[in-house]
């Protein structure tokens, strides 16, 4: 039987196992929305297309599945751009469907036309303009395949309205044939042998771990490796939840707002094993003084990540799961050498423990004003281990990374690469849609929250009980911090002068609003929020000019940390 393009699209989504999609209807996707009424796919109507993409992204990060978002042509499609770029920078598997004007009108500056293929080319792993309904099933199959394999990423399918209406026989291809796309999964055996030799020869090894560990679900293998060779582990923001911070080998986060001991360990190491990380500038600081004494092993599935920013002594291209398993197997053949290694590196771990004691992560407590770090610590104390935490971008994000002790993978969703304010609330929405029974909490600042606060409506409409923490300092705090440190306290346009009544705002949407202005109210507000059904805003009036410390100034070396302001 013949099917229309829009039916074929939905049939393909169903066959890909898609249960929930996020989107916003419009003129060039109206056929898809009409057919959606007859399909067993749950659709969540966000209040902005950017939020639909972030929600699909949060869904993907929390579940590991491909997130799906849909938007109409022109402004609907251009509204997705920030969401797509966010997912691209953090390698999140997603398929974004955009409507397009009918093929005869493409290029005519038609109503609600925009060249999405051109606009999204540099921010997608791949994109497609479907010109013939006969190609549609193959393209959707390829889009999902490309999105979730290799180094994952967003794939956009631009679907003209006439292609949605056109009919053809539907057949979903069973296999994908792409002669130009063959990711390397299997790590080279000789390179792995060399890695074993380098590890055995190390005296001051550090494992530097990035988001690839989450994407490839290799936290278990990472733990085995770290414990086997007793090597300290530092994570990037993207790998925050992949290695428990309470573990004795954990160094916490490295880089600009990393711990003193992580940055000291990297600077003094003689072997740095980079695992699914990409040596971002916020991690390395000044390249010339980054890990100056270390040999570097870089394991990554994406060859372009290797030797892009730093010199690498031993590259290993492959899937982390494959490479780490092989590496563990090879190391396991040298039991005696490993116990010798563990003995000889004991001094290194003691050196690190001394740094930990010297400058632990800390902040000045207060009995009169609420400290943001205190809110984060209390929140951790009162939430379950599997609670999913999302953040926006800024000071609150760094405090969360520094003071929330994550223990399980895929429980920390944050825009790492692009640094997108407004990401946290819609991504929490997506995560909650995937896991209705888990605690999902967006930790936000007053600035970021207002970038997508309209999504309160979506939360209430779909009964998604996301809890929102607003650390309110009436500032764009991170920029204010830079102005304080580097621009002589000239607070240009960073004071949010209009005080917002966030309690009333919550109530306007039919959610619950709570507020704490004193430290002794913090715990009660959190407890009450967690016990309240439905979405809740918890507003904490925090010390206004608190800084995120330690800090490596932009362009400085990791050893040039400022410890306190």
């Amino acid at each position, binding site marked *: 039987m013949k099917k229309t393009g829009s039916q074929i699209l939905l049939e393909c989504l169903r066959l890909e196992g898609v249960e929930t999609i996020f989107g916003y209807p419009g003129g060039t996707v109206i056929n898809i929305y009409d057919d959606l009424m007859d399909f067993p796919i749950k659709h969540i109507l966000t209040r902005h297309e950017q939020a639909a993409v972030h929600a699909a992204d949060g869904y993907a990060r929390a579940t590991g599945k491909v997130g799906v978002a849909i938007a109409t042509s022109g402004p609907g499609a251009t509204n997705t751009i920030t969401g797509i770029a966010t997912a691209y920078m953090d390698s999140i598997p997603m398929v974004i469907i955009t409507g397009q004007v009918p093929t005869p009108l493409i290029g005519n500056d038609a109503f609600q036309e925009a060249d999405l*293929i*051109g606009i999204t*080319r*540099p921010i997608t*792993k*791949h994109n497609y*303009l479907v*010109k013939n309904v006969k190609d549609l099933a193959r393209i959707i199959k390829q889009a999902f395949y*490309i999105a979730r394999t290799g180094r994952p990423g967003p794939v956009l399918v631009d679907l003209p309205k006439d292609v949605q209406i056109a009919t053809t026989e539907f057949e979903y291809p069973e296999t994908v044939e*792409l*002669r*130009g*796309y063959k990711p390397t999964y299997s790590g080279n055996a000789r390179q792995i042998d060399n890695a074993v030799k380098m590890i055995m020869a190390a005296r001051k090894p550090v494992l530097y771990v990035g988001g690839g560990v989450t994407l490839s679900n290799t936290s278990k293998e990472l733990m085995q490796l770290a414990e086997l060779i007793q090597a300290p582990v530092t994570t990037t923001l993207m790998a925050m939840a992949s290695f428990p911070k309470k573990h004795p080998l954990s160094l916490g986060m490295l880089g600009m707002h990393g711990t003193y001991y992580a940055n000291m360990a990297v600077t003094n190491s003689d072997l740095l094993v980079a695992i699914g990380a990409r040596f971002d500038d916020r991690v390395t600081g000044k390249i010339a003084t980054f890990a100056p004494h270390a040999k570097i092993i870089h394991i990554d599935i*994406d*060859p*372009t990540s290797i*030797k*892009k920013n730093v010199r690498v002594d031993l590259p290993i291209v492959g899937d982390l799961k494959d490479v780490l398993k092989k590496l563990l197997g090879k190391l396991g053949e040298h039991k005696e050498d490993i116990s010798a290694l563990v003995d000889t590196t004991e001094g290194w771990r003691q050196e690190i423990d001394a740094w930990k004691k010297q400058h632990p992560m800390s902040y000045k407590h207060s009995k009169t004003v609420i400290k943001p770090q205190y809110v984060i610590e209390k929140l951790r104390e009162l939430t379950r281990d599997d609670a999913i935490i999302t953040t926006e971008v800024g000071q609150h994000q760094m405090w969360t990374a520094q003071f929330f002790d994550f223990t399980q993978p895929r429980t920390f969703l944050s825009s790492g690469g692009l640094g997108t304010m407004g990401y946290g609330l819609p991504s929490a929405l997506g995560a909650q849609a995937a896991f209705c029974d888990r605690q999902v909490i967006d930790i936000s600042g007053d600035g970021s929250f207002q970038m997508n606060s309209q999504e309160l409506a979506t939360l209430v409409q779909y009964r998604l009980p996301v809890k929102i923490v607003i650390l309110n300092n009436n500032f764009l705090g991170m920029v204010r911090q830079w102005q304080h440190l580097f621009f002589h306290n000239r607070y240009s346009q960073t004071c949010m002068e209009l005080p917002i009544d966030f309690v009333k705002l919550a109530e306007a949407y039919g959610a619950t609003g709570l507020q704490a202005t004193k430290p002794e109210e913090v715990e009660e507000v959190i407890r009450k929020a967690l016990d309240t059904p439905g979405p809740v805003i918890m507003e904490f009036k925090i010390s206004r000019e608190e800084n995120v410390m330690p800090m490596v100034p932009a362009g400085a070396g990791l050893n040039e940390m400022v410890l306190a302001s």
Partner: protein
Amino acid sequence: MKHTISVLVENEFGVLSRVAGLFSGRGFNIESLSVAPALDPTISRMTIVTTGDDQVLEQITKQLNKLIDTIKIIDFTGQDFIEREMGMIKVTAEEGTRAEVLRIVDIFRAKVVDVTPRSYTIEVTGSPSKIDAVVELLRPMGIKELVRSGPVVLGRGPKVWRNS
């Protein structure tokens, strides 16, 4: 340093913009670029001349490989290859210079492909340096217009690059 690479890509809509966009987006240089269908008409073969140190070239080839539509990259750096470019030159040819122009054409085994009372259009094929030389010699006669195809290259010897 100058590098010549051939890129075999899917002969599809938008692929050229992906390749060109990759170069501009990452700050790589394109000195010349020529594209046409390959032996297999589903494949386009691009010849790109670029400049950069070894690290830049490594990133260029890796990034090109990363494009889904890229089937094969051939980096001719340090390899034995044949390089040919075509130039067409419209040169002033009046009474005093017509004979000299023809002599230069003759020396370089070029061809006059269009003649008017005041101009010749000359076709010349060879290595880019040969085209440079012809252009330099004709310049004093008065070059009105010049077009160069950018080089295309093939490796020497019986070895061929297949798409599998």
